């Protein structure tokens, strides 16, 4: 994968970063997807939990490394073969965590309708920013997936 530079709106994205960072901090000690192993595999789950948390932390760190001086001066973030997959995973983890926490009270069909329209609808003000983060992370995923496989994202639309 060649290096891909994407220009983002600093005024739209920068205000979201603090909230995304706070959710990423939660992911330092909580798995985005709880392990679904049986009770008989409790020992295995315990070992995996630490390894998965470490992986999750690394991925989130890679995501935040996108938002460096170049982003805050030019609005540019860059993906390449080294960071594309970790950032993709971080976006997935953060979206799951937003859905399970800040957006937990919003019904699935409401989320789907708002995602389709990319609007805030009648969302309470307190969850609008979380939903904006949820949408932004989805957009980042779409950008990366499109470059990994140009046909992939069209299937979602």
């Amino acid at each position, binding site marked *: 994968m060649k290096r891909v530079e994407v220009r983002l709106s600093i005024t739209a994205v920068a205000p979201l970063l603090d909230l995304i960072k706070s959710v990423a901090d939660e992911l330092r000690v909580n798995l985005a*997807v709880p392990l679904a192993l049986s009770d008989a595999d409790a020992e295995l789950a315990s*070992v995996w939990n630490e390894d*998965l948390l470490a992986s999750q932390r690394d991925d989130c760190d890679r995501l935040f490394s996108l938002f460096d001086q170049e982003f805050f001066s030019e609005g540019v973030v860059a993906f390449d073969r080294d960071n594309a997959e970790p950032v993709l995973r971080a976006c*997935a983890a953060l979206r799951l965590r937003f859905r399970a926490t800040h957006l937990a009270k919003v019904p699935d069909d409401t989320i789907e309708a708002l995602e389709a329209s990319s609007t805030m609808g009648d969302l309470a003000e307190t969850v609008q920013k979380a939903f904006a983060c949820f949408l932004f992370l*989805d957009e980042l995923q*779409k950008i990366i997936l499109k470059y990994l496989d140009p046909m*992939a994202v069209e299937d*979602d639309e």
Partner: protein
Amino acid sequence: MIVAVHRPHSSPSSRGVAETAAAPQWRVVFLNDAVTRMSYAVMVLRKLFGFDEATATKHMLEAHEQGRSIVWVGLRESAEAYVFSLQQWHLSATLESDEKS
């Protein structure tokens, strides 16, 4: 850190007879979630299991519609590595003994 080693896809139908008879078999069950983008799930299934687009999409849709899809059957050690890798990509998955059916 545990890292799943990518192996050529081995579908249940391609298992060797000797392997089937000799050792207990385990299923890797991919579980649905309502958040993850479909194209992301398909990409991960292709990457981890070596599925072609159609097979990965079939499993994704099966999980989406029925809540779960058996994506691999084989020896316990490999099944564990696949479940770990799916979790690493934030796709929920579990292990089941193939003797349950």
